[in-house]
């Protein structure tokens, strides 16, 4: 379970998130919507421990992230979260299968096990024929599917998706969301940041952030 208790995040005098409290239970599918600059991405970064709150507390499965050191927070991101970004953020010089192997490698899995698992995941997202292609040789939709396979590599319990369809055409975006919904059906918690209402409709529930506050 993910919990934010009166979390405020500000950069100097600029407030990005203001006194936010929220609980996300396991298996939830939460869409965070709002205009650009409203604090949606900051919200995700606080949940993952990439950012520390200015005040308040973020808890993951009952553990306060503020009490963890950098190495422990890195381990938590490795083990519990999978990230999907708007710009995919694949490593350009690694093939699709190597990109999916990275989280497994960071978690210390045996190379043979990494290869097997990465191959299975890419097969699941429909990229069986693209295993050894570099990102530049894949379409945008394929690149995002590689990113999803990478996010799932370590059996993440939560998928943190920041505008995952932002660079995809409407049909590819909807196909991708259908797959994300399928994953949620399998028990993966999904936190989805989007400004697109049609994409947000895939979620079980929605919150709207405006000027750093949850307004609904």
């Amino acid at each position: 379970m993910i919990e934010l208790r009166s979390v405020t995040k500000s950069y100097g005098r600029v407030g990005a998130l203001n006194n936010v409290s929220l609980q996300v239970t396991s298996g939830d599918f939460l869409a965070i919507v709002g205009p650009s600059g409203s604090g949606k991405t900051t919200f995700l970064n606080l949940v993952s421990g990439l950012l520390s709150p200015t005040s308040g507390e973020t808890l993951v499965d009952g553990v306060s992230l503020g009490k963890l050191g950098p190495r422990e927070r890195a381990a938590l991101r490795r083990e519990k979260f999978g990230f999907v970004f708007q710009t995919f953020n694949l490593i350009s010089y690694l093939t699709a299968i190597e990109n999916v192997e990275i989280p497994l490698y960071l978690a210390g899995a045996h190379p043979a096990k990494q290869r097997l698992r990465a191959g299975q995941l890419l097969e699941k997202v429909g990229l069986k024929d693209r295993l050894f292609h570099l990102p530049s040789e894949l379409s945008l939709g394929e690149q995002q599917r590689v990113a999803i396979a990478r996010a799932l590599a370590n059996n993440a319990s939560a998928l943190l998706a920041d505008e995952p369809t932002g660079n995809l055409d409407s049909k590819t975006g909807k196909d991708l969301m259908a797959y994300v919904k399928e994953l949620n059906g399998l028990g993966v918690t999904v936190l989805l940041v989007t400004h697109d209402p049609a994409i947000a409709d895939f979620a079980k529930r929605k919150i709207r952030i405006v000027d750093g506050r949850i307004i609904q």
Partner: protein
Amino acid sequence: MRTIEFVTKEMSRRKRKTIAGILCILLGISIFVAAQTINNALYDKAKEQLLRFGANIIIQPGGDLFDKNALTQGTALLPEVYGKRIQTIEHAGMIVAVSPKLYERFLVGDVSLSVAGITEDEIKAKPWWMIDRKIVTDQFPQGNEILLGHYTAAHLGPVSKVNLGNEEFRVTGILDETGSADDLMAFVPLHILQGLTGRERLVNVIEVSTSCISCSTMNLYDIADEIDKALPDDARVIPVKQIAEAQIGTLTKIEDFIRIVYIVVLCLGGFLMMNYMSSTVSDRRHEIGILLAIGADARKLYAFFVLKALFLGVIGGLTGYALGTIISMAAGPQIAGTSVPPLLYLLPYSVAISTAICVTASILPAKKAAQLDPVEALQEV
């Protein structure tokens, strides 16, 4: 995937960047190897040339130092066997030649001829002795044979035989001009002259040539001390200081200059490598952000950069050695005036120095990478 694969894939798939990194260190290492290789050749050449100064330790009969007649007229004598004793000292390996000599004057027609009795070691001590520009070998006098100095031969005119006392000697050759007193002398086998003058197993002087080029002045004196201890008190051992100091002074200056050149170049290589690694970190900020976001910790990032530096160091060391050797072999003959053989022992040094420089230069940039803010880095595209 393993860390090593992660690094090698990055290097092999970003060839231009990798080549740029290798070039940073290759420059320094190749200059280091070329300088050392050429220095070595210069050193060998200097050693050969400096030997031409002649003997650097002289053993004379003891007694009154100011008794000029005894020395110049050849009346002061030493047992020839002292020459063999010299060969038994601890550092005998540094001795190139031990040349015992006996002098006598003979009247040949109206010419008063200075004759020296010598052994074959004289050729080792005087590698510049030539006959018709070729090293003296078969012409070395054996039995009743005589070798004439350049001006002696000119003075005697064209002769094939020379009479010394009642003995007839066949002329085996005429030495090319040496520019030394040897031009005014004639040479016969030592034992023949000893028999002819009734001074069996006696000599006037023993000249010792050492190869003490790489050692300090003290070492030459150490060898002289060892010889002094090996001989009885009736022998006086004189190290020729000027020659030793000239030898050491010249070589030290060459070595110091070359050392300064390659230390500067290696420092420059380290500076270039640090800049290269820093620019690599800047170029890869976004990628570092991704890795940090998906769970890489600082240790992992250190490992990536240090391992990359290690690879660049090894490749830079190997290629730098190869390039430096090629440069030295191509340019060496112009600079040193002699052929420059490759020095295989420099290969491990090149790799070790290159690797040490690259790894040291990568530590700060790796630290910078590990301390990157992933959120900021991810925002950069």
